[in-house]
């Protein structure tokens, strides 16, 4: 099993881990020898001795705090948090119900805030922590039909950059990665011509791949990246 700081295995927490990007990251880091904790609203079909799954709504403060208490008592540490859980709903702003907008903002932004807050409390004890938040190319590309989703992801960028400063004295870095369209459930409702249009706006015109994301996350969380914080990397040259 891989060791970090010459002590125990790295402990990673990945939100939205039952499918899509989160599921890929779980498999990637378990294969790497890390201890991985994941969470999603439902169960995960992924089973492994080094994977522990929590069924939790990322916006439920009490449930999230209980989960962190369990992580603390079980592992006594948290090295990495990847805030991946997110929802999207493509629609014209004029046709977007408040309930949909609220759900997007709460899951994407408030969930990220809550997990950053609780993770930092655990990380600060060891003066080491790596937080990676998921944003989106929908922010710089200003994609029509994604106003609320993009706003929630823009909030994550600003939040990332500010808490990077607030947490630097605790040895915690906070960065963000903004994927291009990737074939996941999140974009299954988006017409193919729209996806192609988005891809044509990238410097490198191909759909994103799961390994494109894990590559950036790998870079942000490696111990040598302790001088890299508050940064946002958009994939595909956006």
């Amino acid at each position, binding site marked *: 099993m891989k060791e970090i700081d010459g002590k125990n295995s790295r402990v990673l927490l990945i939100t939205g881990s039952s499918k899509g990007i989160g599921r890929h990251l779980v498999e990637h880091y378990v294969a790497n020898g890390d201890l991985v904790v994941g969470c999603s609203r439902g169960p995960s079909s992924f089973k492994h001795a080094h994977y522990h799954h929590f069924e939790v709504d990322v916006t439920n*403060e*009490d449930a999230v*705090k*209980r989960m962190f*208490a369990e992580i603390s008592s079980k592992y006594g540490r948290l090295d990495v948090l990847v805030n991946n859980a997110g929802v999207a709903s493509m629609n014209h702003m004029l046709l977007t119900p408040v309930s949909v907008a609220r759900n997007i903002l709460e899951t994407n932004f408030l969930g990220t805030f809550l997990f950053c807050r609780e993770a930092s*409390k655990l990380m*600060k*004890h060891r003066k080491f922590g790596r937080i990676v938040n998921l944003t989106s190319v929908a922010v710089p590309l200003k994609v029509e039909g994604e106003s609320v989703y993009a706003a929630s992801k823009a909030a994550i960028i600003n939040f990332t950059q500010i808490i990077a400063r607030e947490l630097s*004295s*605790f040895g915690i870095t906070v960065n963000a990665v903004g994927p291009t369209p990737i074939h996941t459930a999140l974009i299954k409702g988006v017409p193919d011509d729209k996806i192609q249009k988005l891809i044509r706006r990238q410097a490198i015109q191909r759909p994103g791949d799961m390994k494109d994301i894990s590559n950036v996350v790998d870079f942000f969380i490696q111990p040598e990246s302790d001088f890299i914080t508050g940064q946002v990397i958009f994939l595909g040259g956006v």
Partner: protein
Amino acid sequence: MIDERVTNAVYRAVDHFIEQSEKGHQLRKSPATILFGKGGQLDSLDLVSFIIEVEQEIEQEFRIPIVLADERALSQKHSPFMTLGALSEYVSQLIDEHERNRRQE
């Protein structure tokens, strides 16, 4: 009346805070110890760290989620973060309220 468990949890938080402090803080375990403001030893970042320690100790001791630095705490005329005694009193108050709410549910 401050529960002895609250006082002990706050004092454990003092121990943890001192252990981790790189500035050589010496906080006396006394209700009169001034934390923040005139005569206090902690700057705003130290206070954040200390409050987190207290939250974690209280959560472990009482098995309840607690957030100390909310709008209510920040808007009080006499800050609950001024002294260790004021902080313990505020924590006790929050725990009592939590218990009352739980009984009503």
